[in-house]
């Protein structure tokens, strides 16, 4: 009895350490994360941590301010967050599409929870409505092959329980928010993210390789369950050529065959 409880405890602790929530915990605390540089102009407010890795260049803070967090310049925390971001980005990229919206402008659409894919670029002009259908844990994932661009004064409106915590934008290259845009959700971009003058992001700006450029913005991430409530995509499977026993078996077979053939050649001498 005691032993089974102990085993249960060990398994529980192991599961805790390997859960996706823990894997993304470091990343969840970041409002802005860049790969090469973070540049700011004007009185930008970032709620949560601001970090950069592997680059080190952060300019414009102040006048920009970081609240409810601190700055991490290529330290262990930022490096771990970048590693988490790669995991997060790949998870999003692996989510199966529920609809392909290639060629459609997101402005004027009302979308239910799901995974919306764009083979190339995505554009938002006007207002996009996300309807949570009464589920506060509803998730909306946008998989974009190349760029995400929003026109000036565009917005994302959340209704019926939808929360910015459940919105993610996986951008294959760069994201650019036009002046005065009010976007919701976490942007995970492979290259860079630019928030033009006066735009706001109710979520996170996370760039893997490139820069994050800010100009008089407000970036505040949601206080909900963070990134872990996004659906887990199908696993990527590694395909080892051979298991170790098979490899050992092949070595023995080759040794055997080689010995027989070598003996045969010796006999025919």
């Amino acid at each position, binding site marked *: 009895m005691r032993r089974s409880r102990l085993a249960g405890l060990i398994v529980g602790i192991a599961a805790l350490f390997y859960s996706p929530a823990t894997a993304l915990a470091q990343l969840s605390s970041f409002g802005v994360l860049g790969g090469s540089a973070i540049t700011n102009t004007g009185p930008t407010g970032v709620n949560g941590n601001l970090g950069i890795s592997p680059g080190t260049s952060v300019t414009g803070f102040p006048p920009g301010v970081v609240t409810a967090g601190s700055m991490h310049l290529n330290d262990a925390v930022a490096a771990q967050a970048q590693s988490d971001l790669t995991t997060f980005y790949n998870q999003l990229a692996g989510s199966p599409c529920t609809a392909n919206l290639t060629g459609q402008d997101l402005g004027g659409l009302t979308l239910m929870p799901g995974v919306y*894919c764009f083979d190339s670029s995505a554009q938002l002009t006007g207002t996009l409505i996300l309807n949570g259908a009464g589920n506060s844990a509803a998730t909306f994932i946008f998989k974009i092959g190349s760029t995400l661009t929003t026109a000036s004064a565009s917005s994302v409106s959340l209704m019926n329980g939808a929360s910015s915590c459940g919105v993610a934008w996986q951008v294959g290259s760069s994201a650019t928010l036009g002046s005065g845009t009010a976007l919701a959700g976490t942007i995970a971009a492979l290259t860079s993210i630019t928030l033009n003058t006066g735009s706001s992001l109710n979520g996170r700006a996370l760039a893997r390789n490139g820069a994050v450029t800010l100009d008089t913005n407000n970036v505040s991430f949601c206080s909900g369950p963070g990134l872990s409530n996004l659906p887990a995509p199908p696993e990527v499977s590694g395909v080892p050529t051979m298991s170790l026993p098979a490899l050992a078996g092949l070595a023995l077979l080759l040794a055997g*065959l080689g010995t027989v053939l070598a003996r045969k050649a010796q006999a025919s001498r």
Partner: protein
Amino acid sequence: MFSPSPFRFVLIFGGCMLFAFGALLTPAVQSLDARFSSVLVQLSHGLILACGGHATRDAAILRAPGGFGVEMRDGCNAVNVTILLWSAVLAFPAPWKMKALGLAAGSVIIQALNVVRFISLFYVGQYSIPWFEFAHAYLWESLLVLDTMVVFWVWAQRAARPAATAHAGV
């Protein structure tokens, strides 16, 4: 000229294996190994696109539009199988010209089969995960063992011929 001693074969075969697998553990060779895997994924991706298929590539991951992905991780690029074949070819008593032919042709055949394996698993996985597991764990493993054995056997038969003829003339 070439001593076809079975004992000598086993000794050289084991030595070559130990050396090559040992080298595979060094950071420099591991970096080359990872680059080679990336090239194989690029090649597989290119072949799929050339045949009209759909796939995206992210480093060593090949992903289907539906989300399923296969990754060429460490040990997936058939370098380990190639090392075994190379060790056997180098250990076998044959002229160096024949050995060079065996190393080159054997590598090409094994790597070509591995690319076919990778692409086929990419498609089988999209169709059915149980079939993917079966093909990955049993079918392709058996086929690669068979392929390596046949390649070595065919090469060794040809390689032993001139040596045997030369010795017969003595």
